[in-house]
């Protein structure tokens, strides 16, 4: 079985397990909605200034809700020693990581695509005007979030304070990607196109994703096997 086929099998297994139990996706969705609602207590949701910071708000919601899904990525394999079985299986660590990252990516993207219309309605934001570009930013930002989150999930799966350590590890590393995603999303949800000034952010996000995907694939075996 080829590398990508193995990763595909792992991703399909994770998605199937998640869609049957819905344990991470339900809590993540509910959490996203609660934060979106709580932001409206902090400032006037219909003020113009709120629309200017909309990109930042959205990505804070996505990052918080995303860690709930990412926490489960490797922790799902702990009962019945499934993780040991997966490591012992004739599948490379990189394929295991890629499969898990792809499954988490689809789940986080799903949560985002549900939260986005709710956000648009609550805060009166014209998010549909630049939807293809917005989708590109969502895909790039979410891939960065899931790659760093999945490798952190592999690191923290067997350690103390797992749920606390994952966001502590993930958010500082994600600073460049989240900053870029926030800048671009703020422009796009305001209904403006990505200008030449903002194009650099897009390139930076592609670079971030490429660097961390490559390094994670190279080092994940060390994390899993030791």
């Amino acid at each position, binding site marked *: 079985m080829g590398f990508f086929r193995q990763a595909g099998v792992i991703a399909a297994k994770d998605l199937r397990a998640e869609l049957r139990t819905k344990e991470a996706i339900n809590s993540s969705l509910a959490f996203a909605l609660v934060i979106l609602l709580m932001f409206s207590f902090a400032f006037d949701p219909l003020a113009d200034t709120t629309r200017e910071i909309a990109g930042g708000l959205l990505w804070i919601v996505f990052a918080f809700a995303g860690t709930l899904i990412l926490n489960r990525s490797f922790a799902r394999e702990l009962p019945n020693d499934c993780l040991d079985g997966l490591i012992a299986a004739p599948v490379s660590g990189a394929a295991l990581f890629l499969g898990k990252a792809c499954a988490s990516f689809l789940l986080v993207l799903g949560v985002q695509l549900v939260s986005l219309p709710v956000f648009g309605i609550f805060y009166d934001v014209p998010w549909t005007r630049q939807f293809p570009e917005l989708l590109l930013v969502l895909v790039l930002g979410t891939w960065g979030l899931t790659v*760093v989150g999945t*490798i952190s999930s592999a*690191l*923290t799966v067997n*350690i*103390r*304070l797992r749920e606390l*350590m994952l966001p*502590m*590890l993930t958010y*500082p*590393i994600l*600073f*460049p990607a989240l*900053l*870029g995603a926030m*800048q671009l999303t703020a422009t796009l949800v305001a209904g403006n196109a990505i200008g030449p000034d903002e194009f*650099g*952010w897009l390139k*930076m996000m592609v*670079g*971030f994703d490429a*660097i*961390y995907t490559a*390094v994670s694939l190279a*080092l994940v075996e*060390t*994390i899993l096997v*030791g």
Partner: protein
Amino acid sequence: MGEMVLYYIPLGATAALAAAAALAASIGYLRTRNLRFDSLARAATETLLAFLAASIVSGCFVTHAASGKWWTWDARLTAALVCWLLFATCPMLRQAVEEPSRRAAFAAVWSVFACLDVPLVVATAAWWKPGKALAIEWTWPRFWLLAAMAVVAGPLTVARARRAETRREPDSLRRTPHAM
């Protein structure tokens, strides 16, 4: 507090040297699995955190002298703070893992991740707040200060690494009965 303007650059540069040492030691561990490299990486990360914290605090004094505010979201200081948070996760990760070789491997991988992020953090912070950054000008007094700080930081790191080495022995003795 006027002389603070002299300090933040050499302090930051010493932290950068410690980061380079931590990266080299982490790669060394991943290649050789020699726990001495792990002790060195641990010590270099601690030195880095101390010097970077001092650099951020002295930078705050400089901003306060110039604008009356302690924190103005200056690009370089913000980048330094993010880098400090990045490397502060390494000791936390070490604390959470019990088994020494696993702890060393995890910390080494995370150090590599953190070091790769540093140029991206510095560049994105500069794009985020264009034209708003503390000046970096190398003058002779600052070079001398860097040399003096390196003379302090080097032996400090070696001493910390040695302490980690000597601690490992009783730790391994304590673990042996558990392993049996």
